[in-house]
């Protein structure tokens, strides 16, 4: 293990390490802490410049209620859910199918196709803006949730396929051949042999894709414009114009927007990190 385990060091070193760890963490999360603190402050505190001191009064419920007082906030959250969930399901489904095909079948162009998925996934996606927007307008899905659902499902398929292909490739070929000898068709093998075994991989890409799609801002600016379909990231920015310098409301709104991905992250931490670091694991 590197560096040398602190557990074997003398007691003062161990205590110093714990203290340093705590201090680092406090500094690292200082901006988040500041925002969380502000989201429960009164407007008086802000105008008096009491930004870091103890709040003169706690207005947690008032501030968060004020955020939801605007009907649009609930609508934005609903939109984010209605966009993110189908996009994740779509990308994961496509990636399971494509990943299995790329991992376990030999055919001409297999590697080339795999390379295309990787390369497409690395593209600075803003490049696609004008044609994708025109496509959405031409097909009538512009300014509907479908525009975002379909685009995200398609774009995230790149990363998800890369991940699934590498995961499925590790499954032994003998197992699939044994299933074939039992008389299972290829689709039955996919459905009853492969899919149950790749559940951890599905969890990993689902957690990651959820976070990426939920946090997207660019495409929610480009592909939708009305409040009825706009997701929370873009919605927050438009509410900011209304809240002006009411930083306690902006803070509370930011916290609300951050909560779903943070929850997913904490509940699916292992899967999330496995997905994030798939390239960094030594084979």
């Amino acid at each position, binding site marked *: *293990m*590197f*560096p*040398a385990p602190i*557990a074997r060091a003398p007691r003062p070193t*161990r205590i110093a390490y714990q203290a*340093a*760890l705590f201090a680092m*963490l406090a500094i*690292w999360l200082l*901006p988040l802490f*500041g*925002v969380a603190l502000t989201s429960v402050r009164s407007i008086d505190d*802000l105008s008096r*410049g009491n930004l*870091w001191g103890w709040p003169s009064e706690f207005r947690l419920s008032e501030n968060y209620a004020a955020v939801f007082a605007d009907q649009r906030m609930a609508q934005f959250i609903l939109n984010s859910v209605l966009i993110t969930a189908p996009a994740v399901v*779509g990308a994961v489904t496509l990636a399971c*199918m*494509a990943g299995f*095909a*790329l991992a376990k*079948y030999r*055919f001409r162009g297999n590697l080339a196709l795999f*390379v295309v*998925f990787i390369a497409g996934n*690395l*593209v*600075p*996606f*803003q*490049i*696609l*803006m*004008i*044609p994708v927007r025109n*496509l959405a307008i031409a097909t009538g899905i512009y300014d509907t949730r479908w525009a975002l659902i379909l685009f995200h*499902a*398609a*774009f995230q*398929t*790149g990363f998800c396929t890369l991940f699934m292909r590498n995961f499925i490739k590790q499954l032994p070929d003998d197992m699939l051949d044994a299933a074939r000898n039992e008389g299972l068709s*290829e689709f039955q093998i996919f459905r009853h042999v492969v899919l149950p075994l790749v559940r951890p991989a599905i969890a990993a890409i689902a957690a990651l894709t959820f976070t990426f799609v939920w*946090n997207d*801002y660019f495409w929610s600016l480009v592909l939708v414009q009305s409040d009825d379909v706009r997701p929370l990231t873009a919605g*927050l*920015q438009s509410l900011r114009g209304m809240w002006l*310098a009411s*930083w306690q409301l*902006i803070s509370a709104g*930011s916290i609300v*927007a*951050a909560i779903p*991905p943070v929850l997913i*992250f*904490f509940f699916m931490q292992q899967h999330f*990190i496995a997905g994030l*670091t798939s390239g*960094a*694991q*030594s084979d």
Partner: protein
Amino acid sequence: MTGAVAPASSSNSSSSISAWWWRHQRALTPLILLAPACLMFATFVIWPLLQSLWLSLYDWDGIGPKTWVGLGNFVELFADPVFFTTLANNLCWLLVYLAAPMLGLLLALFLNQGVRGIRAARALFLMPFVISQVVVGLIFAWFLNADFGLLNPLLAKVGLQPVAPLDNERWAIFAVIMAGLWPQTAYCMVLYLTGLTGIRAELIDSARLDGARERTVLWHVVLPQLRPVTFIAAMVCVVSALRSFDLVMIMTAGGPYNSTNVLAYYMYEQTFLSLRYGYAAAIAAVLFALMGCCVAFFLWRMLSRERA
């Protein structure tokens, strides 16, 4: 009468279809499984990419007819001072972002311990990466705000002069990049933490038994084994640096005087503010070329690893 014949013939033909299918399923299954993913990816990623490059050769306001101008947009681009500012800013973004792997490595080395609560600590360190860049941008825009920001009262407490980094033409870009460095470092940290769990302990132990100092062990034993991780971390940073848009839009909207503008945001402005779709596509083409160099390098490295 016919009703009695039809099922027999249909079952006959369906059994011949199924026999045919059974013989060819191994060749056809991958095609059927790949078709939806390829169709979606081609429609929303590959084809738009090509269209974007093609559009860069036209003059277009987004509604009327397109006029062929050849390389005209690029000629104009290379005489456009704002373009060079945005290009320089993207390169600046790229260079500063390469600090993220280094900082991430330091953080990972610090956190690679088995003390109590370390798992929770690591998760908390990764938090900035999990939340939206919009939220990160809002937090930092306000943190650095000269009038009601959180930073100046903090500086005043330790006796320092107030600062206004986001209003400063020279420093604003670094303030925005710093905001981006926060989640990016967290990402690199988690990559290195994973890499550190995979390195071979016996090599470290034997180096230590030979009396090597910790610094020597890090440099000659640990870092070489982490090379694949460093490579991925660097690539991830390059990709994020070229995709920078959200933070610029939220924190400065490219200002003051375009000093924080980047290619992606300039392209967005040219499309929706100036309605110059062709010119915007030319900016996208430059961004693509920049990416192409990096991706080519990345793929070449990855394929040579795959073969090895």
